[in-house]
């Protein structure tokens, strides 16, 4: 009986904490606060990017890196230099994010489709404390060919052979 009460107490205490963490994560995700840079030449069909995500909690920033990498490839692009080639954003028409808000809300939702297109390179994590928050850097491999095909299929971007 005591064990049961203890378990219930633990659950009751943890739930608001988890909900708070999720809320913080959602807030940071919605803002898409990150920097993206080239991390080297990747294998065919992928981009290798380094993403720096910001949050008050290091683990949240860490979790956001995959999402931010995909977001960056679609909407931001990144600069080149030192053997790296700069890339234009995949969806470079103004207002595209707002125009397809419903699609992207579901795409970038927790456990959303974005996960299919990004994987973290193990051992690439860097954590820097900047004032009251953490800046977490990770190298992410983004499967850009598959991502482009998905966006073309959804009618968000045009294929090279569209109109012919």
């Amino acid at each position, binding site marked *: 009986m005591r064990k049961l009460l203890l378990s219930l107490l633990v659950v009751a205490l943890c739930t608001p904490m988890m909900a708070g963490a999720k809320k913080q994560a959602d807030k940071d995700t919605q803002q898409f606060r990150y920097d993206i840079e080239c991390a080297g030449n990747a294998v065919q069909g992928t981009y290798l990017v380094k993403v720096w995500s910001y949050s008050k909690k290091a683990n949240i920033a860490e979790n956001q890196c995959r999402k931010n990498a995909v977001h960056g490839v679609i909407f931001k692009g990144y600069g*080149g230099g030192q053997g790296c*080639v700069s890339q234009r954003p995949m969806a470079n028409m103004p207002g595209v994010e707002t125009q397809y808000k419903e699609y992207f809300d579901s795409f970038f939702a927790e456990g959303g489709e974005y996960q299919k297109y990004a994987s973290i390179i193990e051992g690439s994590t860097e954590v820097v404390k900047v004032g009251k928050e953490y800046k977490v850097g990770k190298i992410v491999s983004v499967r850009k060919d598959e991502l482009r095909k998905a966006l073309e299929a959804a009618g968000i971007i045009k294929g090279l052979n569209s109109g*012919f």
Partner: protein
Amino acid sequence: MKKYIFTLAMMLVALVASAQIKKPEIMVIPSDVWCISNGYYTEVENMGMTTKVPNYKQALQENMGLKLAIAKINDLMAERQFPLKSLEQTLKNIEQQRMEDNLTMSKSGNELAESPLDEVARMAKADIILELSWEMKDFGPKHSLTYILEARDAYTAKTIGSSAGTGAPSISADVDVLLEEAIVANMDNLNNRLMDHFTEMQNIGREISLDIKVFANNSRGIDLESEFGGEELVDLIETWLQLNTVQGRFTREYSSENVARFTQVRIPVYDERGRAIDANGFAKQLTKHFKGEPFYIPAKVLVKGLGRAVIVLGEK
């Protein structure tokens, strides 16, 4: 009933076909500078001057790196549903065609007539040319690859876009590995430029240039300042261009009584019958207009490639 359905189906097919623009053909060729610096050229005597002309056949037969680069670019373009036209196959076809033409004779022993201009037009096979160059550079024990891929519109010879850069230095990687790496890293940027070009072409037509000249002492006794209904011929030509170019886009670069030069002329990709047109086709439409009432001006159209035409007025 069956006939009705068949006619309806045919109309639907024609409608779908006419709504689409002919897919431009793209071909990769090694650049002149690459061919010459690697010894793949032949020397041609031209009016007392020796000119180096790239020998693509020799380059393809002797340089494995070139074949690998073309295969890799083709692979990446095919992935975007845009397979390339093969340079090697085109060269073989031209050779085969030339051999067949040489063997073709009429019963009375006459050979086929082909002017040098016909041959130039026959050789211009692709709509877009991708010119490829690369060079290895050594920095002590390390070496890196400098790479340029430039897309050119075969109609106007204008650059559509290019991707260029020097890769990260490496000690162990050989030229083929570095070349493949450079192509993979740079191809998306070039495709973005191609995409911009295609969008522009679909929106505002193909770009050509048009020269109008007059035969001296022609039988009609006209020049570009001759008046028809109170208007000079050159102004009437301009009015025709205004009506027949996409959004009235063209520039009168120069005009005199004997010569008028129109540049940045944006022609529709298709004529009213749904056929793809180039500078030659567009020039023929113009001459047809001025052959009729009230002008009755005979004219000759000279083909100068896909994107340039010369019309000579006064005689055929």
